[in-house]
C-alpha cells in the first residue's frame, strides 16, 4: 500500500473547463428520505462538468464528486464539503457522487490511510471550489456587463450587489464551462466558513440506517460465481493433493481448483470452491479432502517469537537517530533506568470480512470491492495480469471498515487469479475464519527503553531500541537495513532530550504483518509514554508537570496538557493516587492526550472515565472528529485489555469472535472529548486518538496500585 508520508501534499491538476463526457461508474440506486446519492454518472443526469469534481445541471442542481473511499471516517461527505464551501452552495441540496479509480479526474491520490485525506485535500479541493466560483462570477458579470468585483457568490447564486440581480448556477454553468479557470483563486478565511467546522449531517448515514447502503459484499455481477477458498492454515504450507469429488456433488457447486497467491515472500496455497451461491460454496468447501504438505512448517508460538525478540535485543541494530553523547546513558551521576515493553500481534477484524468481485476478460479487468487504495489496486492488478493500467477498472462501494487491512491487495490478487483461470467474474468472500487466519497482523514489538534523568527532572539521555518486523521489508529481496524512516512514529513527541538514540532491530518472521490503525504509533506510544512516566516517578515528579517541562518550547502541546489537567482535576487526583494516568502522543500531524481514571471496588478494577484532549487544527466536521475519537478509544481499549493473537504450531489460534473477543456496548466507559479550536493547518483525524489509550491506562493503574504494567494486553482480572 502506498504509504503517505506525514506532511506530503498532492495537488490535483485542474482539468480543462471544457465540458467532457463523464466516465461511467458503478450504479446502485439508493435513495433515503433526505437525500439522493447517484453513483452512475451520465452526462445528461449530472449536467455540465466544471473541473473534475463539480457538475451543475441547468436547473441549478449541483453534484460534487466523492473521490476517495468511505470506510466510516466520513470522507464521502467531508471531501466534497471542501469543494462546496468555496463554491458557495447549500450543502443540504447537493448530490454526492461516489467515483471509483479515475486518475484523469482526480490525480494520483485516491487512497485512504495515514489519516491523510483531509490533510492532502484541504488546499487543492478548496481551490477547485473557489476556482469554479470565480468562473461562475465571471460568466454572470459578463452577462450583466458589470465588473466582477461587484458580484459575489452565495448559496448557489451569483448576486450583483447594487442591483440585487441574481443568477443561479444552472443559468451560468454553460458559459462558465468555456472560461479558463484561475489556478490560484482567493480562498475564504476560516472566519468566513459557513459549513467547514460545523457538525453537518452526513449524507451516507440515512442509507446506513435503512439497510440501503451497498457494500462490496452486497454487489452482484452478471454471470459471476461465488468463490470460497480453503486456505492452508500455515503460511508456508502447500497443497499436496486434494479430492473434490464430494464437493462437486453438492448442488450449485461448479468447479474446484487449487490456488496459489503470492503474499510477500510466501505462497499462500489453498483450494477454491466455485458455486452459484455463498452457501453452496461453503457446503462444497466443508467436504473437500485436502492433504497438506507441512514440510516447511515452523512450530512457533507467540512466546517463542517473544523469546526471539529478547535474543535479538542485544544486537546492535540500525540506528535511525543519534544525537549527543550516549555515554550519558551509563553515567552514574544521574538516575538510570531501563525498562522493556511488549506489544502483541493484533488482527483488524473489520465487520465486513475481505471480499471482492473480479472479472478478467479480453485484456481487461474490473474490480468491485472495498479497498483503501483504488490506485494501488489498479496498478497491482494491471501488473499481475500483464495488462495496461487503463484497462483496469476499480469500482468502490461503501466499505465495512478499513482499519488499514484494505490497503493490502492479497484478497484481490487471489480473486483475480481465480477469475483469470476460469474466465467468469469471481465473487470471493472470505469467511470470518479466513479473515482472521489471513490477517496482515499489526506487528508485535519489544522496546528496550533506557534513560538518564537528573534530580531536577531534566531528561539527560534516552535510548529507544525497538525489535519489530518492518512492514515494508517482507519481500524475499528486501534489505533489512532499509528500515522505514517513520518507524518511530508515535514516539516522537518533541520532548527536550539532550542525548537521544533510536535504534531498530528488524526481524524476519513467518508472520505476514500489515498496516493496522495508527500503524507504528500503536505500539511506540506504549513504550514511550509509559517510560516517560517511569522517568518522572524516579525523581518524584508529577508526570504531567514533567511533560510540560520537557515541552517548554511547544505551546500547542502545553495547551493540550493544560486542558487535560483542568478537565480531569489532575493534580488532586494524581497526588491522592486515586487512579489517574495520562499519555500524550503526536502522530499524523495531530496532538492527542488521554487521561484515564480507574478505580478498584470489591476487588474489581474499573475504568471510570476517559478524558480526551485533541488538537487537529482546523476541522471539517467536529462531530465526525468526535466520532473518530470515540471509535479509536474503543478499539484502543480492545487492544489494551483483550486482544492478542496466539499461534500454535505456527497456526493462528483466534479464528472468530468467540476467541477474539470484541468490546461490547456495556464495556465502554464514559468518554469526554475536548477539541482544541485554533486555525492551525488540519492534522489527521482517523488514527491519532488510538495510540494514547494503552499507555494512559497503564499509567493510571500504576497511580492506583503502584504496579508497572509493561506487557499488553492488560488483564484487569489478573491484577
Amino acid at each position: 500500500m502506498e504509504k503517505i508520508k506525514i506532511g506530503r501534499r498532492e495537488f490535483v491538476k485542474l482539468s480543462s473547463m471544457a465540458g467532457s463526457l463523464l466516465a461511467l461508474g458503478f450504479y446502485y440506486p439508493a435513495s433515503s428520505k433526505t437525500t439522493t446519492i447517484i453513483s452512475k454518472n451520465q452526462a445528461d443526469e449530472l449536467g455540465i462538468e466544471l473541473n473534475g469534481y463539480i457538475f451543475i445541471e441547468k436547473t441549478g442542481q449541483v453534484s460534487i464528486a466523492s473521490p476517495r473511499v468511505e470506510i466510516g471516517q466520513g470522507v464521502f461527505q467531508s471531501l466534497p464539503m471542501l469543494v462546496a464551501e468555496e463554491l458557495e452552495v447549500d450543502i443540504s441540496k447537493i448530490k454526492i457522487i461516489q467515483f471509483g479509480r479515475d486518475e484523469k479526474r482526480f490525480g494520483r491520490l485516491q487512497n485512504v490511510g495515514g489519516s491523510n485525506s483531509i490533510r492532502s485535500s484541504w488546499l487543492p479541493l478548496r481551490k477547485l471550489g473557489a476556482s469554479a466560483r470565480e468562473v461562475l462570477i465571471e460568466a454572470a458579470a459578463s452577462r450583466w456587463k458589470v465588473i466582477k468585483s461587484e458580484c459575489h457568490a452565495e448559496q448557489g447564486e451569483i448576486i450583483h450587489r447594487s442591483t440585487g440581480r441574481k443568477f443561479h448556477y444552472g443559468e451560468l454553468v454553460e458559459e462558465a464551462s468555456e472560461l479558463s479557470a484561475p489556478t490560484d483563486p482567493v480562498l475564504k478565511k476560516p472566519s468566513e466558513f459557513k459549513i467547514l467546522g460545523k457538525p453537518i449531517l452526513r449524507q451516507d448515514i440515512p442509507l446506513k440506517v435503512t439497510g440501503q447502503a451497498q457494500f462490496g459484499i452486497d454487489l452482484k455481477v452478471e454471470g459471476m460465481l461465488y468463490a470460497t477458498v480453503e486456505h492452508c492454515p500455515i503460511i508456508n504450507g502447500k497443497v499436496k493433493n486434494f479430492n473434490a469429488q464430494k464437493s462437486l456433488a453438492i448442488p450449485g457447486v461448479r468447479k474446484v481448483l487449487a490456488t496459489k497467491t503470492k503474499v510477500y515472500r510466501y505462497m499462500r496455497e489453498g483450494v477454491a470452491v466455485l458455486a452459484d451461491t455463498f452457501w453452496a460454496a461453503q457446503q462444497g468447501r466443508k467436504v473437500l479432502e485436502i492433504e497438506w504438505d507441512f514440510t516447511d512448517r515452523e512450530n512457533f508460538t507467540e512466546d517463542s517469537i517473544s523469546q526471539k525478540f529478547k535474543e535479538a535485543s542485544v544486537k546492535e541494530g540500525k540506528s535511525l537517530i543519534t544525537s549527543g553523547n550516549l555515554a550519558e546513558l551509563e553515567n552514574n551521576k544521574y538516575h538510570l533506568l531501563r525498562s522493556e515493553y511488549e506489544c502483541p500481534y493484533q488482527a483488524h477484524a473489520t465487520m465486513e470480512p475481505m471480499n471482492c468481485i473480479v472479472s478478467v476478460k479480453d485484456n481487461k479487468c474490473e474490480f468491485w470491492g472495498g479497498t483503501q487504495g483504488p490506485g494501488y489496486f489498479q496498478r497491482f492488478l494491471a501488473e499481475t495480469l500483464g495488462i495496461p493500467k487503463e484497462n483496469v477498472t476499480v469500482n468502490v462501494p461503501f466499505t465495512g471498515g478499513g482499519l488499514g487491512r484494505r490497503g493490502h491487495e492479497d484478497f484481490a490478487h487471489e480473486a483475480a487469479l481465480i477469475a483469470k483461470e476460469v474466465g467468469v467474474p469471481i465473487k470471493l468472500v472470505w469467511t470470518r475464519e479466513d479473515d482472521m487466519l489471513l490477517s496482515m497482523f499489526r506487528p508485535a514489538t519489544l522496546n528496550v527503553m533506557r534513560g538518564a534523568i537528573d534530580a531536577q527532572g531534566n531528561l539527560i539521555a534516552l535510548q529507544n531500541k525497538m525489535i519489530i518486523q518492518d512492514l515494508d521489508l517482507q519481500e524475499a529481496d528486501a534489505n533489512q537495513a532499509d528500515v522505514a524512516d517513520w518507524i518511530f512514529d508515535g514516539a516522537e513527541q518533541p520532548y527536550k532530550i539532550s542525548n537521544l538514540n533510536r535504534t531498530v532491530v528488524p526481524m524476519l518472521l513467518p508472520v505476514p504483518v500489515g498496516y493496522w490503525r495508527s500503524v507504528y504509533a500503536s505500539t511506540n506510544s506504549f513504550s514511550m509514554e509509559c517510560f516517560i512516566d517511569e522517568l518522572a516517578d524516579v525523581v518524584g515528579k508529577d508526570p504531567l508537570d514533567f511533560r510540560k517541562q520537557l515541552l517548554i518550547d511547544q505551546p500547542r502541546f502545553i495547551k493540550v496538557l493544560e486542558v487535560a489537567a483542568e478537565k480531569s482535576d489532575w493534580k488532586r487526583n494524581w497526588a491522592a493516587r486515586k487512579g489517574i494516568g495520562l499519555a500524550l502522543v503526536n502522530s499524523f500531524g495531530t496532538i492527542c492526550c488521554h487521561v484515564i481514571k480507574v478505580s478498584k471496588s470489591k476487588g474489581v478494577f474499573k475504568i471510570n472515565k476517559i478524558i480526551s484532549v485533541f488538537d487537529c487544527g482546523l476541522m471539517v466536521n467536529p462531530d465526525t472528529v468526535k466520532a473518530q475519537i470515540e471509535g479509536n478509544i474503543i478499539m484502543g481499549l480492545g487492544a489494551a485489555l483483550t486482544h492478542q493473537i496466539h499461534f500454535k504450531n505456527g497456526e493462528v489460534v483466534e479464528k472468530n469472535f468467540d476467541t477474539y473477543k470484541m468490546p461490547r456496548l456495556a464495556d465502554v466507559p464514559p468518554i469526554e472529548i475536548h477539541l482544541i479550536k485554533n486555525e492551525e493547518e488540519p492534522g489527521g483525524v482517523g488514527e491519532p486518538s488510538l495510540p494514547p489509550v494503552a499507555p494512559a491506562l497503564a499509567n493510571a493503574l500504576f497511580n492506583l496500585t503502584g504496579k508497572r504494567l509493561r506487557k499488553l494486553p492488560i488483564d484487569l482480572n489478573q491484577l
Partner: protein
Amino acid sequence: MPNYILSINNKDYSFTADASTPLLWVLRDHLGLNGTKYGCGKGLCGACTVHLNGKAVRSCSLPVSAIGSATKITTIEGIGASKLHPLQEAWIKEQVPQCGYCQSGQIMSAVALLNRDSSPNERAIEIAMAGNICRCGTYPRIKRAIQATISQINKK
C-alpha cells in the same frame, strides 16, 4: 431441493433452497435483500439480526427449513419503509453510523428491545445490545440514540 414460502416484511416469498441454508443467505442470495449482513457465521456478532415475530434472532445460524411459513419475518428493509422508525430518526440525529456495516443488526436488536419493553433502563439496554459488535466503536451513540428514543416515545 425443497421449495419454501416465507413471509418477510408482510410479503410472501417463494423460492427453492437447500434445507440447511441459513436464513441470512436465503435473504441475501435468493431474495436480493442485502440489508442483513454477514459478519461471523456463528451468531457471535449480530450483523445478521432479523426478527421472527418481532423477536431478534441471528439469521446466520437459523436454517431455512426450521422457520415455517406462518412465522412473520422482519428485516431491516421492513423497518421504516414508509416512515422512519423513531429509532432510525434518532440514529440519524445522533449520527450513529460510521462504516455502517453492523448498523442494520444494531437497529434490529434495538427495535426488538423496544418492542418488548418501551422503557428499558441502561442495564437492560446493555444486555439487549450485547450481541451486536461494532468495530468502529459507535456504542456511545447507539446508547444515546436508544435513550433519546425512549424519552421521546414515553413523552406521548
